[in-house]
Each structure stands twice: as C-alpha cells, then as structure tokens.
C-alpha cells in the first residue's frame, strides 16, 4: 500500500508543479467565474446600461386644436379635465425611478428620431401620434362615436431587446392606465343610465369624475405586487440566496475537475509511451498497486483542486457554499466521479493525443448537458430530465440543494446516483487497463 501511495505522491507532485496544469485547473475556472460574476453582479448592485430613448411627442391633447395640456377641452366635452396622454408617457419615461434604465431625450419630428436609431445614437425611438389623447379620451362616454384608433410607434435597434422592451412596457402601462380611466367612465355612465338617468351633461360629469377617481386610485393603490425570492430547499433549513459567482463557479468547478482528472490519468499513457511504466512493471511491485497508485493520484489531484476552488470562491467571491458536512460529502463525491471519468476516458485511448481528443469531447458534452455552462438558461421539464443522464447533472443538482439551504437529506439521492455512476466508470477503467497491462 505504501508503494501505491508513493506512486500517487509522485504524480500529484508532478501535476501541481506544472504551471500549465495549474492554469487549466485553477486559474481558468476562477477567471471565467469572475468575468461572469462581474457581468451579472449579485443582488442590489446590478444595473443594466440605460436605454438611450428618443421621444417625439406630437400629441395635441384631447380637444382638437388644444395644446397638450390638462385642460384640453374647455367646453366640458369629451376629454375635459383629462391629462394629455403624450405628456403622461414622457413623464413616465423621464421619471426618477427609471433614470437608471432610460436615458431620455426628445426630438422634434419622427424622421430625426428614426435617424438617431439608424445612426446608433439612440437605442429606441418612441413616436407619439398627434391623435393619441383624442383616441384615448375623445370618444363619447356613452360608448358611441368611437374615435379612430391611434398607433404609437416604437422604432428600435434590432440587436437590442431588453432596453426597448422596458420602454415599450412603460408606454403600454401608461396607455392601459388611460384606457382603465376610460373604462371606469363608460361603466359609470352605463350603470347610471341603466337606472334611468339620461341627462347628457350629468352623465358627462359622472364620466369625468369616474375617470379622475380612477387616475387618483391608480397612483395611490399599487394593488398586487411581486416579492422575488430564491427557492428554499428544506422547510426547516435556513433560506440562502447564493450569489451569481457562486452558482457559476460550481458549474465551472465540476467541469474543470474533469480536465484536472485527465492530466494525471494521462500520465499512464505518457509513462507507457516513455517506457517508464513497463520499467515499473518489471519491479517487484504488483501491477495492481501501481495502477492503484495512479487511481489515488487522480482522486487526490481533483480533491485538492476542488478544495482550492471552494476556498478561493469563499475568499474571492464571497460564496456561501452551505453547511460544512454536506459540502464535504459533495466535494469528495465530485472528486470521485471526476477521477472515474478521467480514468475511463483515458483507459481506452492508445496515445496521450487520442486521450486528450476523446476526453475533451466527452467532457464538453457532459458539461453541456449537465448545465455547467448553461445552468443560467431554462429549458423547463425536458432539460431537467436531460441533465440527469450525466453524473455531473446530478452533482450540480446536489450542489444547488446545498447552496439554497438544504441538508444531508436533500442530497442523498444525487450522491447515491453519482457514486453508482463512479463505480461503473471505475469498473470500466479497470477492465480496460487490466486488459492492456495485466
């Protein structure tokens, strides 16, 4: 056994003395994690780039010929007392709450606004038509004599979706609020008329009052609101919200440990090619001990790699990995499965080059289906099933459970599955190595 440990110690030392190996095993996952963590931040500090928005407000107000103002129709007709919808849209887009998201400027005409988007000076142009308020407020409160429909044009940079989407949502919300006021006015008139009141002046006043009441309520009553929170795993466990960097680093760690495992695993082939392995076989040390030493080396290399990455994540990115016990179990499990995968992908290759090519393809495929790179994307039910064809998918699922506050009971099944996969891989690797070297 001591001889196996000596073989293992030599291989571990060899790997950790190679700067290239260290870069691939430690620097690469940490740098990629740092970059993605910086891109998406964590929690309150995150803000996307403000969308450069040009507004062209051509709205004439509710009363034809009147400027866009709150007293659009002085004669008490349709639209009396209602705010100019164009001005309301401008005010909403320029509100202090949206200052970080919308960088608002105005333009005198649609042509120059569109030209600004075409030239890349603006991301989106909002063209408010002259008859907007007329279309919203100008109809009869009785529901007849509908005004012609109006169209607000949103002209956006085709390569941008998020910022223009926010602008469009704000515009739509203002319009729908105005339409809500109209709905309140019309329903008030309809209900009153149904009870026999048919004086047009009184009904008009009633409509104005209902619309005004609606607009007041809309400002003061936020209604239903959403409170975003991460999922908790165990009802008794603490609810944690791991930051983006922690979630990315786990994916990267699980992926790069495969490459970490493949480096010492390939040493079997390297030594075979260099003749040092056959020389070892001529000594009194049994072949099983020599191969056992190689297995131990692969496991220890990956275990050390995982521990270093977890500590680095804690120190560099402020990651909360979860309770110590389950984290330790998962770290060992991860090292076992990575070692077994590293060995099995090397075991049926004839040369180090072939092993590198084959293992790279297998690792990248496993990383893809498991969610090492794309844990950030959602594929719904299909993906959640697909990722379970790989032991890495199970491992990532277990890490998710722990990071979101789970305990041992939440990782039992994934750990058992991962160990079962590892057992099969070790058996396969041993079969191929024995066939070649026995």
């Amino acid at each position, binding site marked *: 056994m001591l001889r196996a440990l000596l073989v293992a110690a030599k291989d571990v030392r060899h790997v950790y003395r190679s700067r*290239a190996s260290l*870069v691939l095993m430690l620097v*690469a996952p940490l*740098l*990629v994690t740092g*970059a*993605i963590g*910086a*891109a*998406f931040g964590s929690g309150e500090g995150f803000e*996307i780039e403000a969308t450069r928005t040009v507004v062209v407000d051509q709205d004439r107000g509710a009363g034809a010929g009147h400027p866009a103002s709150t007293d659009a129709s002085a004669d008490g007709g349709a639209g009396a007392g209602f705010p100019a919808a164009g001005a309301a849209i401008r005010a909403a887009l320029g509100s202090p709450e949206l200052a970080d998201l919308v960088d608002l400027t105005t333009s005198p005409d649609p042509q120059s606004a569109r030209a600004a988007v075409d030239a890349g000076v603006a991301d989106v142009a909002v063209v408010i038509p002259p008859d907007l308020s007329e279309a*919203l407020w100008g109809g009869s409160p009785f529901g007849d004599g509908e*005004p012609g*429909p109006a*169209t607000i*044009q949103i*002209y*956006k940079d*085709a*390569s941008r*979706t998020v910022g223009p*989407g926010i602008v469009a949502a704000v515009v739509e919300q203002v*319009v729908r*609020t105005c*339409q*809500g006021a109209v*709905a*309140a006015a019309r*329903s*008030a008139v*309809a*209900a*009153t008329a*149904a009870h026999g009141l048919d004086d047009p002046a009184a009904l008009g006043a009633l409509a104005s*009052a*209902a619309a005004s009441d*609606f607009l007041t*309520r*809309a400002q003061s*009553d936020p*209604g*239903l*609101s*959403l*409170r*975003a*929170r991460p*999922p908790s795993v165990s009802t008794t466990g603490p609810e944690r919200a791991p930051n983006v960097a922690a979630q990315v680093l786990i994916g990267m760690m699980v992926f790069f440990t495969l490459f970490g495992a493949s480096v010492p695993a390939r040493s079997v082939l390297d030594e075979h090619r260099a003749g040092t392995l056959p020389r070892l076989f001529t000594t009194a040390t049994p072949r099983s001990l020599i191969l056992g030493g190689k297995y131990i080396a692969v496991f220890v290399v990956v275990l050390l790699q995982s521990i270093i990455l977890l500590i680095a994540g804690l120190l560099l990115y402020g990651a909360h990995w979860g309770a110590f016990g389950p984290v330790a179990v998962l770290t060992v499990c991860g090292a076992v499965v990575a070692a077994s995968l590293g060995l099995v992908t090397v075991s049926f290759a004839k040369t180090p*080059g072939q092993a590198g*090519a084959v293992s*790279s*393809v297998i690792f990248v495929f496993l990383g*893809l289906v498991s969610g090492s790179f*794309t844990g*950030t*994307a*959602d*594929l*719904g*039910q299909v993906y959640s099933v697909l990722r379970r064809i790989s032991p890495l998918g199970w491992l990532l699922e277990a890490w998710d459970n722990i990071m979101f506050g789970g305990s041992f009971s939440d990782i039992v099944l994934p750990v058992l599955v991962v160990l079962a996969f590892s057992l099969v891989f070790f058996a396969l690797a041993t079969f191929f190595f024995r066939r070649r070297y026995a």
Partner: protein
Amino acid sequence: MSRVWHIAFKELLQTRRDRLAALFTLILPVIFTVFLGIMIGRANEDSGLPLALADRDGSEASQTLALTLSGSPALAIRQIALPGLEDAVRSRKVAAGLVIPVGYETALQAGQTVSLDFVCLETVPGAQSARQAVESVLFESHLSSLAIKSAAHVVTGATGLPFDDRLDRVLRESVTAALAQPTVTLDVTDAGRPLPGEASGFEQSSPGGMVNWVLFGLLTVVAGVAWEKQRGLLRRFLAAGVKQREIVAGKLLAMVAVTFLQQLLLATVGQVGFGVRYFHAPLALLATMLSLSIFAASFGLLLSSLFRREQAIIAVTIISAQLLGVMGGAWFPLEVASHSFSRAAHFFPTAWIMECLHGITLSGWGMTQVLVPLGYVWAWIAVVFSLAVWRFRPD
C-alpha cells in the same frame, strides 16, 4: 514569397491531418452553437413559460387569479403545493413559481396591498420573462378592479344606489368590454432591414460560436510552432536561408486561413441550418471575418512567441479564448450584462466583432456601418502583431 506559401501550406496540411484540430475547429463549435441556440431561443420565448403556482388561500379570489394567469398565452400554469414548487424552481423544471398567500382574498376585500412571492433563480433568464408575464396579468387584473371600484364609487355617490350584485355585474361587464377594445396600439419595428420573423437563439449563439472558438482553431499551428522551436526546426529554416519574416508570414498566413475557413463553415451552418442572415452583406461579413482571423492569428503568434512549452500554450489558449469570448459577449448579449461590465467589455476586440456580426445579421448592416467597430479591432491587431513580431525568436 514561395517560401511563405510553402510554410503556410505545410501548416495547413498538418492541421488537416490533426483530428484534435478538426474537433476544436469544426465539431465542437457546431455542437455548442446548436445547443446554445436552442437553449437561448427557449429562454427568450414569450409563450408557454412553465410557471408553478401554489394557491395557499384556496379562496374564490385566488382561484379567479389562477384562472386569469392560465389565460395568459405567455404562461403555462402548473398548480402544485408549496414544497413541490420550491423544488420545481430550484431544479429548473419550471421558469419560476408564484405563491398566493393565505389571507389573499381578505386582504383584497380590505383594500390592502397584497404581496405575492415570486420564486425564481436569478440566473435563469426565463424567470424574467415569466415575471413580466405575471406582472402584466396582475396589472390588467388590477386595472379592471380599480375601474370597477372607481365607477362604483361615483355611481353610488351620485345616485344613492347600493353596491349590490346587480351593479357589480353591470360594471364588470362594462369595464371588461371597454378594456377589450383598445383604441391605441403599439407598433414595434426594428431599425435597418429587420428579420422577416422573430429572432431565434441562433442570432446570438452562431456569431458567439464564431468568436468563442476562433482561437481554438489555432491550437495545432501555435502548439506546432512551440514544438518546432523546441526541436530547433525553425533554426534549421534560418540555416537554410529562410528569413525570419518569411517564417512569421508563413505561420501567420496559415493561422488566418485556418480561422477564416472555420468562420466560413460556421457562418454557412448558421445561414443554411438556422436562418441567420450572414450573407446578405458579403463585403461587410468578409471584412469582419478577416479582421477576426487576423486578430486571432496575431494573438496566436504572440502566444507562440511568449511560451515555449506545448502544454502551457494549450492552457493559455483555452483560458484566453474563454475570457475573450465572455468579455466580448459571445456567451450572452452584452445588453443583459451590467452597465459597468458592458463598458469594460468594449475594451476588447471581440465585443466590437460581436457588434459587427449582430449588426450584419440583425440590422442589415453594410460595409459603412462596420468600419468604425472594425477600426477598434485593427488598433488591437496593430498592437498585438507588433508585440508578437518583436518577441518572436526562432529558437
């Protein structure tokens, strides 16, 4: 000049015979492009996003809300109990979860603001789309409820009528009818020459794949240079009368050719397989692809100048490729990243290349629009190439 061609030809021959090179240059980029294209497309879909719903109130009001949410084409509602909801969100079986709390109906009747738990993983983009859809439904529902309240308030005040079931029904029908006939519509148009249909995930994954994998295509040539330096083969070239600049030009030419062919293949796969519009502006595309190839080749030459060992070159190439890809917006569009990251990313040439490729494929950019972004790339090329040539030693 013929010596340059011979050196370049030898490198290309070596690359063609190397299976590992084919793997990194062609097969893996295509696999990544397809997989990420499907995933991004699915995440950006605005229809049928699975939303787990836990109704803890079980009241008439909460059931009405559940019914309204089910009517949203953007959402596919799955009603489950709370523990199952947490698990479904965490394991990404659903895009997000919504919890209607106990006392929902009572709070609504009392006119109190009700807060619903929206359970999501912040790194799942589908969750943001689901949240927008839920907020939209809640807003519409709130709009209708407010309109009824306002109308009822005014009608009862003006006529003295009681607010009974009959009045409620009349108002509800009238409000629903008024809101169902919007007199104002939004017309969203893309600038330039917009796509005939909706953009798919491949508009991001295909150019992203080109930028992300271009450096991998150089592995064979760059590692080969290190190998030749170690064994003194480049010195033998010098002894045979080949000038150092001819060696550099030959290697560089081979790298440009390899990466250009790689890009051409990926662009063709993107256009033919997934409808990404690369070839409608051939000149702009050619300029962009050549710029990326020349940058990658200069970078590869720099790596082979700085590092002697094959293993070190492979490690540095992999890490550089990943970082340039992430920073350039090859993995995700920079518009969804933080403001400061997006600014910092534009220091890197890959961000400008991505901007050109997005401009060509999404906005119908031509040669004139790509000139300025490519100017930044060429500034990088000048610096990297000068450093590479300055540091290049045949031994």
